[in-house]
């Protein structure tokens, strides 16, 4: 057993869940898929859940997940009225998943351009296994990452999106994952496969939310996004589950030559969230934008783990993450940039800006550059601060209340990230969610007059340049 991981404690219950799952899993008779799941499960048992001794998990303790016995979530039905609140207008298609299971009644696939396939992965595995086989499990790393291994072992349902060469889908495809209140701790392993062939254009929104009250839930999602040559793709992740939710999501992007891909994320909910973004710029001249916003309060733990791999020359990557932390929330930004030997003329940039609204909020920000080529440009920067007193006074001096002024300033800080989102449909949706969320943020409630806010920076900037 590696010191950096714990053996899976309740292995029997995992084995039982897996055996039960396999009996009913989509495509269980397909040898390749059977092997993919079996190997992944074996790998999961072998590597176990990471501990904080693992450098990649230094700031995030998943003991709570390791100790819990999770049951596969049941299928549940929502009344149409309950799901109405979750609609996003002007999208190309909506796929709704309840507790990880595709719900055809709540979904709306509508009229998509020719050459675009949007379906549940489960359905696509059954109907077109050869299409799915070409990409599924080829990119996401089950070797090192226990959560990806676990997800792969439990590949059952999720979204399947395929865009043929040269086809442009202007409006985003909206994927909504709702978890319902259950009597026991439950888990879902959504698996999404998005393939955009050469010169295609696509945008996908993944939105995780809860309905009907709080119960312990693990949403462990993996999305593989394959962008062909000169393809333009955008991915949006929204996490707004309740505070008993564990959410681990991994976005693995494979970029072809001159592809232009953006990953945008918004973390609002979830008790413990790990947001893995792992693009590989595999073809020359690719561009990748990684843009995210995380707003934590209470005892939320929001971890953003970026792993940008430059594998070809003349690629550019830009990372921008802004965090606002209040209460005793703990945020993490870990930005690893790996520049492979042949990836000359790489231009990689990383910026992480944080606002701490309370004395007990904490941020760990860690840039990490691993550069094996000699002609590259890599820059990184991190800031940790409070709401700027000068700006606050300026707004108040014009008649705007302290609370409203703080909200405006936080919104402006958030807006830096929101503005980078290219799709107006996604941007408006996210802007609305942020604005609603900030109304209820503790830190913007006025500090009582007797109390002086002491300035204490509880964050650490850890720098590693190898």
């Amino acid at each position, binding site marked *: 057993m590696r010191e950096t991981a714990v053996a899976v404690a309740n292995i029997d219950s995992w084995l039982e869940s897996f055996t039960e799952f396999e009996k009913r899993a989509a495509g269980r008779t397909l040898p390749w898929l059977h092997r993919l799941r079996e190997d992944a499960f074996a790998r999961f048992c072998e590597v176990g859940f990471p501990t904080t001794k693992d450098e990649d998990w230094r700031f995030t303790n998943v003991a709570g997940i390791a100790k819990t016995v999770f049951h596969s979530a049941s299928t549940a039905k929502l009344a149409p009225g309950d799901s109405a609140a979750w609609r996003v207008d002007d999208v190309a298609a909506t796929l709704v998943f309840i507790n990880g299971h595709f719900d055809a009644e709540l979904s709306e696939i509508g009229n998509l351009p020719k050459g675009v396939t949007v379906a549940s992965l489960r359905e696509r595995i059954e109907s077109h296994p050869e299409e799915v086989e070409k990409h599924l499990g080829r990119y996401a790393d089950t070797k090192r990452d226990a959560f990806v291994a676990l997800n792969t072992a439990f590949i059952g349902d999720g979204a399947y999106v395929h865009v043929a060469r040269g086809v442009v889908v202007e409006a985003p495809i909206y994927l909504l994952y709702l978890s319902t209140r259950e009597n026991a701790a439950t888990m879902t392993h959504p698996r999404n496969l998005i393939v955009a062939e050469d010169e295609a254009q696509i945008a996908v929104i993944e939105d995780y939310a809860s309905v009907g009250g709080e119960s312990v839930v693990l949403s462990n999602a993996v999305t593989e996004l394959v962008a062909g040559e000169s393809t333009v793709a955008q991915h949006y992740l929204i996490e707004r589950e309740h505070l008993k939710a564990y959410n681990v999501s991994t976005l693995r992007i494979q970029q072809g030559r001159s592809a232009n891909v953006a990953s945008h994320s918004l973390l609002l909910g979830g008790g413990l969230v790990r947001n893995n973004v792992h693009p590989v710029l595999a073809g020359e001249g690719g561009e990748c934008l990684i843009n995210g916003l995380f707003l934590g309060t209470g005892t939320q733990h929001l971890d953003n783990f970026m792993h940008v791999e430059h594998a070809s020359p003349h690629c550019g990557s830009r990372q921008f993450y802004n965090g606002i932390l209040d209460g005793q929330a703990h945020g993490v930004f870990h930005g690893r940039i790996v520049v492979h030997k042949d990836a000359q003329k790489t231009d990689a940039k990383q910026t992480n800006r944080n606002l701490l609204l309370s004395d007990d909020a904490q941020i760990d920000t860690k840039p990490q550059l691993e550069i094996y080529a000699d002609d590259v440009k890599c820059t990184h920067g991190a800031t940790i601060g409070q709401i*700027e007193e000068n*700006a606050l006074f300026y707004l108040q001096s014009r008649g705007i*209340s302290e609370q409203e002024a703080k909200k405006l300033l936080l919104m402006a800080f958030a*807006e830096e990230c929101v503005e980078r989102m290219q799709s107006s449909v996604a941007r408006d949706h996210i802007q609305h969610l942020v604005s609603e969320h900030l109304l209820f943020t503790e830190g913007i409630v006025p500090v009582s007059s007797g109390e002086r806010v002491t300035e204490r920076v509880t964050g650490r900037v850890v720098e590693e340049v190898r």
Partner: protein
Amino acid sequence: MSLLEIRNLHVSVDGNEILKGIDLTVNAGEVHSIMGPNGSGKSTLAQVLARRDAYEVTEGSITLDGKDLLEMKPEEAACEGVFLAFQYPVEIPGIGNTYFLRSALNAQRRHRGLDEMDAMDFLPMFREKLKLLEMDDKLMNRSLNEGFSGGEKKRNEILQMAVLEPRLAILDETDSGLDIDALRIVAGGVNSLRSPDRAMLVVTHYQRLLNYIVPDFVHVLVDGRIVRSGGKELALELEEKGYGWTETPQAVGARA
């Protein structure tokens, strides 16, 4: 009742006394200029009037139309009609100029029991004020003061003042860093806002601005005290002789 009454005002910052007993009465319709060397406490006075809480009032009182200003938060003072044109206007990325100004105006209108102004009513009025300050309305689509030149920032302050129509306007070194054209425009904006219902406090180091905004009264502030008061001719005298002659022995070693 005077519009503004300052009585025996003592103010400290981090334990250092900056204002050491200011008395000043300003009536509606009057323009007063506060002049003085650097570090004399001019800006402190301006900031205290706008209710910045970094300044501790240790003694004395300030009333605005009879109400205790020292009890007010900055936004309350603003809603009661205090406006400070900042010496260093703050750049706030992400907050649009127009949006900000309409929010501020509506906050003040709500306080006064007036209906909020929607964009349809606001924009024509706003365009008039832009013309007055000869400002490009493209600037207004940008974030608050972001990337504005020094002159544009100062004009934006006066623009805000023109929109908010304060009872007491305080101009803190509004002339500093302005070329003569910008100075004329800014002064023109200020003069157009002179009114029998409004008082102005023009804080400046140099007499230059007072050629354009002619004050009714001039007060010389040195080392936290008003050492002389007079009419507009006092400004000219200061220009000629400098501040040296006004300095009392205590003033030596005043904050730079």
